[in-house]
């Protein structure tokens, strides 16, 4: 499929017309699905990168991921009583160690990746931060208050990051969401396919048409690039 060819080998410094991240595409999709969690205002807050008040469960998740990263780097966690204490939060040791054991062999952590692809709408930069990279797999660590099966099936992270890795000549066989509600650990694994990539691109085109239509509402200068 011609539109899947990367403009440059690494895509880092290539000029682009539009920049898309999984966060923005996920918010756009939630809004289009009439998801209760996403209003017109909240969508544009995300597009514009406005600071939002984070709920405690999100702050706890940030500390959890920070703890796991430190453990991967070789730090021992501080155990107080029956719990691991970190960043002002308490975590169950069995949950922490189970997640750590799954991620300890990763080759990259929080790696910024991007690629620019040509399309009939212009040059589109897909970019974001890949949580944990392996030679043939990507893992994204998720924390949530409530988990249900296939929670992340509509998330675009597995689509976008798998496509970027493919276009950069480093394709993956699978993308794994490693999920914890701080009580249990779950995983969802997705296998990238050509159909998934095609649907992703149509989804991105939809988003770009929306961004162009409501350009006047967008203050984030990183969304629209200056392609040569």
């Amino acid at each position, binding site marked *: 499929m011609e539109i899947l060819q990367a403009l440059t080998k690494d895509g880092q410094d290539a000029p682009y017309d539009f920049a898309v991240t999984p966060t923005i595409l996920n918010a756009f999709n939630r809004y289009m699905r009439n998801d209760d969690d996403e209003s017109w205002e909240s969508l544009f807050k995300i597009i514009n990168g406005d600071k939002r008040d984070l709920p405690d469960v999100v702050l706890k998740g940030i500390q959890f991921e920070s703890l796991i990263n430190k453990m991967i780097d070789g730090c021992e966690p501080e155990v107080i009583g029956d719990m691991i204490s970190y960043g002002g939060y308490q975590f169950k040791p069995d949950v922490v160690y189970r997640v750590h054991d799954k991620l300890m062999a990763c080759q990259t952590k929080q790696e910024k990746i991007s690629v620019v692809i040509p399309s*009939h709408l212009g040059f589109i930069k897909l970019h974001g931060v890949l949580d944990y990279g392996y030679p043939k797999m990507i893992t994204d660590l998720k924390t949530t208050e409530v988990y*249900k*099966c296939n929670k992340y099936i509509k998330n675009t992270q597995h689509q976008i990051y798998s496509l970027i890795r493919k276009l950069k000549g480093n394709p993956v066989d699978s993308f794994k969401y490693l999920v914890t509600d701080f009580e249990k650990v*779950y*995983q969802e*694994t997705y296998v990238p*396919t050509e*159909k998934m990539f095609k649907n992703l691109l*149509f989804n991105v085109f939809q988003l770009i048409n929306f961004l162009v239509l409501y350009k006047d509402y967008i203050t984030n200068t990183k969304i629209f690039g200056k392609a040569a």
Partner: protein
Amino acid sequence: MPIEGQSLLTATKSDLSEMASIIMEAADDGVADPLDTLIFAKKGLYVFESIVEGMKGKCKLPEKGYERHNVAMSERATGVQWHYDTCNDPEWNELNAQKISIEARLKIREAYLKALNGLTKIEASVNEETGEEIEAHTIFPAVRVAGESLILSLK
């Protein structure tokens, strides 16, 4: 299937999610055969869907907001449909007629676009109905996206 001392009857949604996750994890990590896992799930689906269908109309709730075994239960109308063609509303009738007409025109246009092979150059022209000038342009072929699914038929 018991999991950590829980039975299916009393398990929470979180227990069930963990159960599904553990089974899929085994297939993803190469411990279990993915095809066997799918067959196992397909058979389970057949059994449980048959039971759910067979229980329709047989269960009565003792009260509103009833809960049992970590399941909240309520009654509500399903499959609600509204028919507006009985309203004798000229505006709705006209909009509906436009919708039917547009759907028919879309079908014809999509059949034309589907039959195109490669790029098609369209010369500048004038819309005979509106007088609007249409610039010369190129039509791109429609993109076909199809997936592959495994079809399992129980015997």
